[in-house]
């Protein structure tokens, strides 16, 4: 299946804004993060098709996964 991954803020560094990944049918957002070298501690917000998702959600062909790092400064 093909999954579109959108990255935000510092996660874009060295990776780009949007990537199309070919993945096996069992792949989860956690697997995709590992492939992209993203530490799950840097995954603050995870959206699957624009709605709140989980690292171990099942994905389907054509899904869009968006990943935002934690912003915590005041």
């Amino acid at each position, binding site marked *: 299946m093909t999954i579109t991954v959108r990255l935000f803020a510092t996660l874009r560094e060295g990776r780009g804004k949007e990537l199309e990944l070919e993945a096996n049918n069992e792949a989860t957002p956690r697997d995709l993060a590992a492939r992209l070298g993203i530490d799950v501690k840097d995954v603050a917000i995870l959206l699957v098709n624009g709605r709140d998702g989980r*690292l171990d959600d099942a994905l389907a062909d054509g899904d869009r996964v968006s990943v935002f790092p934690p*912003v915590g400064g005041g």
Partner: protein
Amino acid sequence: MLARYERNLNALSESEVDALASRTVAVVGCGGLGGYLLEYLGRLGVGSLIAADGDFFEESNLNRQILSDAINIGDNKAEAAKKRMALVNPLVAFRALPLRIDAENGPDLLRGADLIMDAVDGIPSRFALQETAEILGIPLVHGAVAGWYGQVTSVFPGDRTLDEVYGRNSGAEGRDRGIEARLGNFSFGPAAVAALQTAEAVKVLLGRGERLRRRLLVVDLLENDFEILDLRRPTAPGKEETAFTKRTLAPN
């Protein structure tokens, strides 16, 4: 209408200006975001402000914290905020709390507030504020900033939106600090996010306009990306905005 508030009209009605004058807002954190929040809320005419911060100004705050200056280095931030408001708008009833708010002392210290503004640094303190707002049954307007990036949302009682914002529910372990630990913060990031946070607070207080409930406004000033993220789980039917807002926060 006091001349001081004339230019609030007619973007706000007279009764809305009066409603703001009868409200109490607690700003927790008087650093980058908090300094601007107090300035904006005080000039606008929010009648009563509570400002809490246990920290003292350091030289490294001067690049961005509007309440810091060359002569108040070493002063408590909440006390400095009170001094400034006495100059900016002496009509504001201002209570300075020169201490750190946590989940234990928060409900007692912030009792009486209609709304809490989250302007603290780091992530654990934000969960303490979410807990405090939950106990007091009042909304929390969250703002956070790191370099070019920022975010704003409103957390209503029962929502616990910060659990989603910081990955408690996604399966990520999370960190105590976000990307600001590496990026730092410069002058206009906190000012921009504080302005958006203030607009949100006014709308929550007045029950007017579109609010960011269970949605996160994400701002990227580098790429000019402004996105609103829907933080509701697709399977869980989102609770609609309840009568809570209208009952508690609509103008008198």
